[in-house]
């Protein structure tokens, strides 16, 4: 990848073949598109079936699978350098931290820990054993 010299050298030695030595083909793109359509149909039908507490995990698993296909194949993350992968992976870690701790906070609030006038979290979600009635749904 080093073409250091100024002009004067024959051009065929100059243009660098980048990280993609293998010939590229459009077939993976069509394959990913078919998979994405399939997963869209899957999320449509499982979503319409209203599977109760399974609905959200199923929907998110399908969405993550679709995203992985788009990121790896369409966005070429599969063939990218480690640096770009690190950037993408790091952003996902921070999304996970943000979501996890925020939801964990909201999910574990109980009445004595909620300040007066808080928009929600006052009349539900008691930790087990503190009050006898169950939280609604």
């Amino acid at each position, binding site marked *: *990848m*080093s*073409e*250091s010299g*100024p*002009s004067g*050298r024959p*051009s065929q030695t*100059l*243009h*660098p073949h*980048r990280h993609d030595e293998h010939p*590229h083909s*459009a077939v993976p*793109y*069509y394959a*990913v*598109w078919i998979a*994405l*359509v399939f997963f*869209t149909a899957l*999320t*449509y039908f499982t*979503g*319409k079936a209203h599977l109760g507490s399974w*609905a959200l995990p199923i*929907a*998110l698993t*399908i*969405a993550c699978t*679709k*995203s992985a296909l*788009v*990121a790896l*194949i*369409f*966005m*070429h993350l599969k063939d*990218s*350098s480690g*640096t*770009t992968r690190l*950037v*993408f992976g*790091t*952003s*996902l870690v*921070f*999304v996970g931290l*943000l*979501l996890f701790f*925020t*939801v964990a906070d*909201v*999910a574990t609030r109980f009445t004595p820990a909620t300040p007066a006038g808080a928009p*929600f*979290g006052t009349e539900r979600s008691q930790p087990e054993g503190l009050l006898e009635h169950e939280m609604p*749904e």
Partner: protein
Amino acid sequence: MSHEADLGLAPGILGHHFSSLARQNEAMRLGMWLFLATEILLFAGLFTGYAVYRFEFPEAFKECSRHLELTAGTVNTLVLITSSLTVALAIHYARSNRPKAAAVCLVLTLAFALAFLGIKAIEYTAHFHEKSLPGKYYAFEEVKVPGAAMFFSLYFLMTGLHGLHVVVGMSVLSWILWRTLQGRYNERYYTGLELGGLYWHLVDLVWIFLYPLLYLI
């Protein structure tokens, strides 16, 4: 810039501060991915707000979701997925020294983007008519439970910000289409086109999560 001519590049592609095109390409890609990371975190803030309020008002979210136009959302999902394919193909054709095919793919992508916005506009019009609007403007007759206005606040914020990204993406892709028609991209250099494509795929990625979370509760 005989330096660029030797490489078979159009003038103005290789910055003089880069020792090689490979390094410039890598720097451009890294910069774009850093920008995309900030975009992901921007949307993550809204998704977190969504998670909190859905946790708090599960019944209201369920009911409101079932009043959205599911067919419109599903068709829009397929439209965006297909537009992602055409962008990927545009890059593929540019790399194969077929700028005309690449331009056709970009025009198709822009057409899909317009179709997406058109369908979204029809949905928004319906929301304005039935007054399923954010915050204090909420006066939807069919769902009158606490949290319903919050669902529509989040719905408009998330789809609105996403729609804004569609418009920006269309502007970027139009610019890149112009550059493609000028013959700027070929097997030696197509990074500009590739970065525009990355932005478009991100728009698709966000919608992949918005679709089940808004339409299919």
